[in-house]
């Protein structure tokens, strides 16, 4: 399938908090250039899986390799975009200062060089935020804050972009802009995104990983109503976008 090592390779991964098993015997390969979307019910382990890949949590059993390395060692190759809603809306900081944090970690003092500033400005350019650089992070819209966090991840460099529920609380127009941005980035980066909006997922991502204690991967073309019901455990209202629900169901291979 690919002549190089996988971008992310997960084998026999299990993880739990105290007595509660969150993930069980997970096997997942993410290839270079992949665009994969992680869906599943709340509490199903989506965010846990991301934190394991980032090395913020360690597995109880099994292994995770990012470009063949342990997650902690490969962090510099991952750009991470957390949910913007977790930030203190009153924190006094400019958009540029947020993006510069992508350049942290160089020295003990973490002072920024002119090159760091150039990288940050370039990332702001890519996300269409150049004019907002000096604006307070608190004063911009939800969609703009989301793009600021993507710019921060881009400024850090890296070949994998991991996003955690980036479309929560942003309006439809921002969502479309956001998809265009992802499409462009996917030409040079592997993209892994957690979302709860399955319809959104089908329009861009090549593959979908359903996470609910186990992880099962489907090509986007297989996304059906039955599959979605199984992922979320049945009781679910579905809003149809551009895909059709078929009767065939799905296979786990």
């Amino acid at each position, binding site marked *: 399938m690919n002549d190089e090592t996988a971008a992310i390779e997960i084998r026999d991964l299990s993880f739990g908090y105290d007595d509660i098993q969150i993930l069980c015997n997970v096997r997942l390969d993410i290839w270079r250039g992949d665009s994969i979307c992680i869906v599943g019910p709340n509490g199903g382990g989506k965010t846990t899986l991301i934190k394991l890949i980032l090395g913020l949590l360690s597995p109880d059993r099994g292994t995770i390799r990012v470009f063949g390395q342990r997650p902690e060692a490969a*962090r510099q190759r991952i750009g991470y975009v957390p949910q913007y809603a977790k930030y203190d809306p009153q924190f006094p900081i400019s958009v540029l200062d947020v993006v*510069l944090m992508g350049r*942290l970690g160089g020295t003990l*003092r973490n002072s*920024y060089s002119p090159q760091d500033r150039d990288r940050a400005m370039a990332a702001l350019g890519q996300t269409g935020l150049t004019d907002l650089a000096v604006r307070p992070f608190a004063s911009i819209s939800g969609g703009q804050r989301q793009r600021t966090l993507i710019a921060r991840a881009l400024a850090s460099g890296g070949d994998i972009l991991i996003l955690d529920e980036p479309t929560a609380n942003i309006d439809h127009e921002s969502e479309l802009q956001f998809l265009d941005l992802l499409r462009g980035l996917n030409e040079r980066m592997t993209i892994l995104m957690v979302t709860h909006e399955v319809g959104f997922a089908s329009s861009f991502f090549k593959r979908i990983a359903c996470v609910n204690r186990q992880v099962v991967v489907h090509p986007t073309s297989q996304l059906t109503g039955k599959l979605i019901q199984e992922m979320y455990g049945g009781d679910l209202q579905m809003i149809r976008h551009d895909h059709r629900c078929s009767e065939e169901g799905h296979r786990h291979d």
Partner: protein
Amino acid sequence: MTEFLAALADPSLPFFRYAVLTGIFASIPFGVIGTYVVVRRISYIAGAISHCILGGVGAGLYLQNALGVSWFGPLHGAVVVALMASLILAMVSMHAKQREDSVIGALWSVGMAAGLLFIAKTPGYSDPMSYLFGNILLITRTDFFFVLALDVLVLGIIGFFYNTFLAICFDEEYAQLRGIRTHWLYLLLLCLVAMTIVLLVRVVGIVMVIALLTLPAAIAGNFARNILQMMVLATLLCSIFIVVGLGASYSLDLPSGPVIILLAAAAYLLALLGLKVTGKK
């Protein structure tokens, strides 16, 4: 006001000049460290550290006066207890975040209880109220130099780690992903908070330390565009509260500590009301 200026110039009232000068220089750590306390939302942690210092002060008094350990005094006790409390709180934040609240409450009350027991068993009379509310008019030359040393320590460390501390206050998880050793730096930040509290408790007392750490910074946070502006503004506000509060307490013959706190609180309320009326927030 003229009485106040006359008192400042009066050579027979050196304590008054020390009080004003120390107040102004103490505003620097109040403004700078207070900014971190406010944006990182750890005023309850600062509260726990400052209150459990009474345990250290009590232990120091007891060791000195009851057991005759002459080299160990209330200040040493306060430093040891404040740093221990920082270490405990940093470890709790690392390993048992969900119990942080309970640990804060426990440290707060156990420190005070231990302090009162030590003071009760120490021969001679010392008034716990003087530690709770302090008395800025009792400040000596030595206290003034301690505050100057604290200014140098705080500005030196914050100047060096400015970007790093900003990152761990804004988004600790991301800072960790960028390879910053966030646990150690959070501990360092808490130790700075602790040292600030210890030295300034001598000046203004346990209760007032929290007021002056949080109120000026909280007001400044509504107007500042970044952390640096917030620190400068908080420092300015703090020194104004201390100087005006001292002047008012002198003219009205009231205890200075409570006057300063109420002045700061009134300014905070006015700032919030002002923002509400002008519709800025």
